[in-house]
C-alpha cells in the first residue's frame, strides 16, 4: 500500500466545488425592492421599466382571467403561470420578431407576446384545430410542446436551420422546466446545438417543482445551470423573480448566440405560486404554507411596483385601469374562441397528409357524406 493518503483525483473536492461558478444568480432588485445593482438598473429607461411592469401585470391578469374561465368550465388544459411573470416576460421581452420560439405547455404568455393571439391560446386550451395558425402567418413558433424535452432537440434543429439560412441576428428560443432537465432530449438538444455551434438560447424555468416532485429529487447537481458544462454550453443562473435581471441576462444570452458563438443555457430561479395545472393538481399535498410564504414575499410584481412607485412612474389607479383593460381584451378573446366553428372529422383527415393516401381519401368521402346530412 502506498504510504501517503494523497488522492490521485480528489473527487470529494471536485464534488464540493463544481457548482460554485453557477451559484451567483444575477439580480438587479432584491426581495425587498431594493436596487442592488445600480449600474445595471441605470441601463433601463423609465419607459422600458414601465413596459416591463405592464407586461407582468398583463401576464398576471391573463392568469387570473384564464383561471376564472377554467373554473367556469370554458377552457380545457391550462398550466398556470402565477408567480413566473418576471421569468417569462423578462425572457419574452428580449425575444425578437425573427426568432423561432419553442414553447413548452406552460409558455403560452411568451407565445402570445411573440405574435399569437389570446384567442389562439384559448383555442389551444379548449382543443381546437384553429389554435396553431400563427406560424405561417409570420409568427415563428412551434405549438406549446406537451412532450417534455422534445422542444429542446427541435430547437437545436431550428438553430442549425437558421445558421444554414444565413439569417442574421436570429436565434431559436426554447423553454423547459426544472423537471425537464432530467430528460434525455434536454441533454441531446443542448449538446447538438453545441456540436453545431448553432444559435439556440435554452431557458430552464426552475419553479421548484415538477408537479409534486421537488427540484432536489431531479438531480444532486446544486444548480441546473451547471448542466451546460456537460455540453460546453456557457450558462448562468438568474433571479427569475427579478424581471430586470431576467431580461438583461436573456438579452445578453440571445446576443451571444446570435453573434455566432453557439448556444447558451439560462436557469431562472422562480416559483409556481399555485397548482401545476388546471386539471386537479393540489399543491397542499406536497407543499407547506411555511414553504410557500417566503416565495409570495418575493412576488416579482411587488418588487418592481415598489421601485416604480418610488420613482413616481406607477400608481395603483394606473394598475387597476390596466387590469380592467386587459380583462376586457381577454373576455373578447374568449368570446371569439367560443365562436370558432365546430370541428369536423374531415378537417382532421384533410390535414393528416398534404395529398391524402387512398385509405385517408376513402375516409374523407365517408365522413363528407355523413357531414352533409
Amino acid at each position, binding site marked *: 500500500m502506498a504510504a501517503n493518503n494523497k488522492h490521485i483525483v480528489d473527487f470529494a473536492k471536485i464534488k464540493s466545488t463544481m457548482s460554485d461558478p453557477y451559484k451567483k444568480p444575477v439580480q438587479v432588485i432584491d426581495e425587498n425592492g431594493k436596487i442592488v445593482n445600480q449600474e445595471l438598473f441605470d441601463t433601463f429607461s423609465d419607459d422600458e421599466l414601465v413596459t416591463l411592469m405592464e407586461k407582468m401585470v398583463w401576464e398576471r391578469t391573463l392568469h387570473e382571467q384564464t383561471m376564472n374561465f377554467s373554473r367556469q368550465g370554458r377552457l380545457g388544459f391550462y398550466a398556470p403561470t402565477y408567480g413566473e411573470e418576471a421569468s417569462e416576460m423578462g425572457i419574452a421581452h428580449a425575444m425578437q420578431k425573427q426568432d*423561432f420560439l419553442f414553447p413548452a405547455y406552460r409558455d403560452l404568455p411568451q407565445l402570445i407576446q411573440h405574435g399569437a393571439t389570446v384567442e389562439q391560446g384559448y383555442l389551444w386550451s379548449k382543443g381546437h*384545430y*384553429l389554435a*396553431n*395558425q400563427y*406560424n*405561417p402567418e409570420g409568427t415563428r413558433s*412551434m*405549438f406549446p410542446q406537451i*412532450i417534455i424535452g*422534445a422542444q*429542446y*432537440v*427541435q*430547437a*437545436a*434543429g*431550428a*438553430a*442549425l*436551420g*437558421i445558421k*444554414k*439560412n444565413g439569417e442574421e441576428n436570429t436565434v*431559436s428560443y426554447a423553454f423547459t422546466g426544472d423537471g425537464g432537465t432530467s430528460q*434525455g*432530449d434536454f441533454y*441531446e*438538444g443542448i*449538446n*447538438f446545438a453545441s*456540436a453545431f455551434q448553432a444559435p439556440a438560447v435554452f431557458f430552464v424555468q426552475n419553479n421548484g417543482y415538477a408537479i409534486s416532485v421537488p427540484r432536489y429529487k431531479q438531480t444532486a447537481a446544486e444548480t441546473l445551470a451547471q448542466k451546460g458544462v456537460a455540453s460546453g454550453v456557457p450558462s448562468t443562473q438568474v433571479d427569475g423573480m427579478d424581471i430586470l435581471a431576467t431580461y438583461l441576462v436573456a438579452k445578453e444570452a440571445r446576443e451571444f448566440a446570435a453573434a455566432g458563438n453557439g448556444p447558451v443555457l439560462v436557469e431562472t430561479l422562480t416559483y409556481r405560486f399555485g397548482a401545476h395545472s388546471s386539471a386537479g393538481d393540489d399543491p397542499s399535498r406536497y407543499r407547506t404554507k411555511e414553504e410557500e410564504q417566503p416565495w409570495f414575499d418575493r412576488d416579482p410584481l411587488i418588487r418592481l411596483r415598489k421601485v416604480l412607485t418610488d420613482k413616481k412612474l406607477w400608481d395603483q389607479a394606473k394598475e387597476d385601469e390596466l387590469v380592467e383593460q386587459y380583462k376586457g381584451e381577454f373576455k373578447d378573446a374568449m368570446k371569439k374562441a367560443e365562436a370558432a366553428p365546430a370541428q369536423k372529422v374531415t*378537417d*382532421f383527415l*384533410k*390535414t*393528416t*397528409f*398534404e395529398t391524402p*393516401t*387512398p*385509405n*385517408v381519401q376513402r375516409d374523407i368521402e365517408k365522413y363528407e357524406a355523413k357531414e352533409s346530412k
Partner: protein
Amino acid sequence: MAKLTYIKAITEGLDQVLQDDPKTLIFGEDVGKNGGVFRTTDGLQAKFGEDRVFDTPLAESGILGLSIGLAATGWRPIPEIQFMGFTFEAVDSIVGQMSRNRFRFNGKMSMPITIRTPFGGGTHTAELHGDSMENIFTGVPGLRVVTPSNPYDAKGLIISAVENNDPVLFMENLKLYRSMKDEIPEGKYTVPLDKANVVREGNDITIVAYSAEVNEALKVADKLEKENISVEVIDLRSLSPIDTDTIFASVEKTHKVVLVQEAQKMAGVGAHVASEIAENKIMSLDAPIGRVAAPDSIFPFAMAENDWLPNADDIEEKVREILNY
C-alpha cells in the same frame, strides 16, 4: 442504363435529390466523410460539401429532433438512423412529433423528412440490427412507410420519398444491399408511393410479400410454374398505406392468397392485409388466408438466423397447403 446493386441505386437516388433541390440535407452517424457504414452515402459529401452531407453526434432522438427543426426552417432533411433497431431511441420524434405537425398546424406546416434506415436478417448482424419493426410505425397517421425489394424500386422510391412533403420512413433491407443487381436508368425517375407492384402475374394463387421476402416468393413462383401452377406475386412496396386496390384485384382473379413477411407473425403488416381482405373480399376467397411469418420470439441470435427467418421453403409449403385446401 447501368447494372447497379440495391445500395448503389439508393446512392444514385440520393445524388439525384441533392442535385435537384438545394434544400435537401443528408445527415446521421458516419454518413459524411465515411460515406455511411454501408457506403450508401459514399462520395456524396465530397461532391456536395459538408453543408449538405454531414455527420452528427451519436444520438438518434437528437438526429430526428434536428430534422424537425431543420424542416421548420425551410430545409428538406434526409436523416439516417444507422439500424432500425435504434429507432426506439427516437420514437417520439417520429410518432409524437413530425408525423403530427401538419395536422397540428391545420395543414400549414410541412415536415418533408425522409428517414432512411437499414433492417432485415440474413447477414448475421449483432443484436437489434436486423429486427423488422415496421409495425411500430405503420399504425401512425401522418407517416408513410415504404420498403423496396429491388434496385430499380430503391432508386425510384427514394426520389419519390424525398420529393414528398410529408414524413416517410424508408426501410432498406441489409441482405438486399449487395445481393442483387438491376438495370437502372440514369438520371431521374420515380416509383410512386402508396402503390404496390405486381412483380409477376399469375392466375392460381396470390402471394403478397415485401422487401427480401419478395425474392423468396419469386423463387417459389418459378418452381411451381414447372408444375403448371401460376402464382401471382405482389410486392407491397408501401407498408403504410397498404395498396388494397392492387391486392383486391388479384384476389378476385386467383381466389387464394398467402401473405408473407420476415417479421414475427404478431408484428409486420400481414395481419392488417388479412383483415382488409377479410373485411372486403371474403366472398372472393376459395380458401383461408395463408400466412408466412417468423416465430413470435425475439429476433434470433445470429447463428440461428437461417432456422428462424421465413424462406422459400416455408412459402412453398404454405402455398401448397392453401392450393390444396
